[in-house]
């Protein structure tokens, strides 16, 4: 049984069709990358899976429960794109607060260590660097000891070092048996982390497979070429 599933999900915002019939399943222990250009529908898919947006049609489940149910919320964590986090709370205070939402959270020290925040736990959020801020959001996603993580473009705006460090934290979450849905528009990120890539464009999944299978599509020499050729093909079909 998949840990998260979208079945023929569509989502319209007025005249805009953000999702046009998406089928996607994440199996236990798997890291699935939802790869697509800006505006492809990645964030909408995540919002539907988190119960933050109601699908126009179709079925969504998290651990066989509705995505906005308390049971679903307890078993998942989410790192979302957020423009402003309250700046006058300390790192440890943010984590203590989110941990209090769960009956069995990780010990605070363990969350701090897993997110690479040991040593800066008493800093105010507003005093942190971009990479440190993203690590706090990662800590808030994992503090409840979830089995499933949603990471919505987690490394946007990070420098190479911070990005690689977050990758290794994501990998160790999967190594401990967790499942992840990661959205990204960085091809190397999907290539480096994912067991399976679903390429999304204009609200549809247009290709799906292991990174190797995606790369093998067309006469491409690398993932970037393959991606561009998939984008081109599917947009021609749409027209």
């Amino acid at each position, binding site marked *: 049984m998949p840990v998260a599933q979208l079945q023929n999900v569509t989502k319209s915002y007025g005249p805009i069709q953000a999702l046009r019939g998406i089928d996607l399943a994440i199996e236990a222990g798997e890291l699935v990358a939802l790869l697509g250009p800006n505006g492809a529908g990645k964030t909408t898919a995540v919002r539907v899976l988190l119960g*933050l947006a109601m699908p126009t049609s179709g079925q969504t489940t998290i651990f066989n429960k509705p995505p906005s149910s308390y049971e679903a919320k307890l078993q998942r964590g989410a790192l979302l794109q957020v423009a402003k986090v309250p700046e006058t709370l300390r790192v440890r205070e943010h984590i203590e607060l989110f941990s209090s939402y*769960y009956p069995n959270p990780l010990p605070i020290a363990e969350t701090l260590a897993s997110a690479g925040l040991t040593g800066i736990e008493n800093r105010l959020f507003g005093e942190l660097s971009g990479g440190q801020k993203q690590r706090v959001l990662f800590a808030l996603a994992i503090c409840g000891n979830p089995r499933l993580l949603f990471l919505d473009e987690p490394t946007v705006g990070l420098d190479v070092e911070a990005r690689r460090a977050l990758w290794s934290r994501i990998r160790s979450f999967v190594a401990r048996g967790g499942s992840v849905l990661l959205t990204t528009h960085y091809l190397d990120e999907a290539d480096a982390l994912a067991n399976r890539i679903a390429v999304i464009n204009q609200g549809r999944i247009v290709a799906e497979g292991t990174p190797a299978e995606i790369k093998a599509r067309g006469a491409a020499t690398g993932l970037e070429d393959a991606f561009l050729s998939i984008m081109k093909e599917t947009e021609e079909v749409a027209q």
Partner: protein
Amino acid sequence: MTRAYWMETKFEFLKHLRMKSYSLSTIAFPLMFYCFFGLAMGRGNIPGAPLAMAQYLLATYGAFAIIGATIYAFGVGVAVERGLGWLQVKRASPMPPAAYFAAKGAVATAFGAIVVGLLFALGAFFGGVVMPASQWVLLGGTLIAGAVPFCALGLAIGAFAGPNSAPATVNMIYLPMSFCAGLWIPYEFLPSGLKQVAPFLPAYHFSQLALAVLHVPVQGTTIQHVAALFAFTLIFAGVAWLGNSREREKMYG
């Protein structure tokens, strides 16, 4: 899950206390105005009332303080947290949804109560205000209870205002409403045009209730003012609810 409510309230309080833009403006403005108008200039009596200005203005600046603490915490707080994505992160988590609003309400009211306490101290020690203990308590209690409609007003503003324009929006409502309702200078001194407007403002009904505790001859009856504030609360809550449901369908990406 009561622990989540407690933690939410504790950290909401710390967050606001450290946020200078909030703590200074909500605390400093009412105290400063009261010092100017209630203490420095307030030696005379209110015409038609056997009451010193320092005592009269304790009620109206108390109301001003409560309104400021609540309308900023909700109006600006919710607009920023909603508009810049933080509320989404909380909604995706298993936070009890009511905890967010309960904590904001408790913290905003607590800040208002602190300012009211400071105003009372100024009035008693420097303004020569003398009242029986029961009257102090009743005035304080009336002011604190008056936080409810203004939490709702702030919520309504927070549901519609953009994150950048929210402080200006709040000021554009808070300051003129306070003046027109007779919070800065007594209602009796307002030009007759403004006196006509005042009954349409929740701040007017609030201040009339607080003044009634001081046995000032007020407009209308207590029941009328309570009923008006109750109606305003329902209207603001309804507006906030509309804004909230609109928001859920608007965002995409």
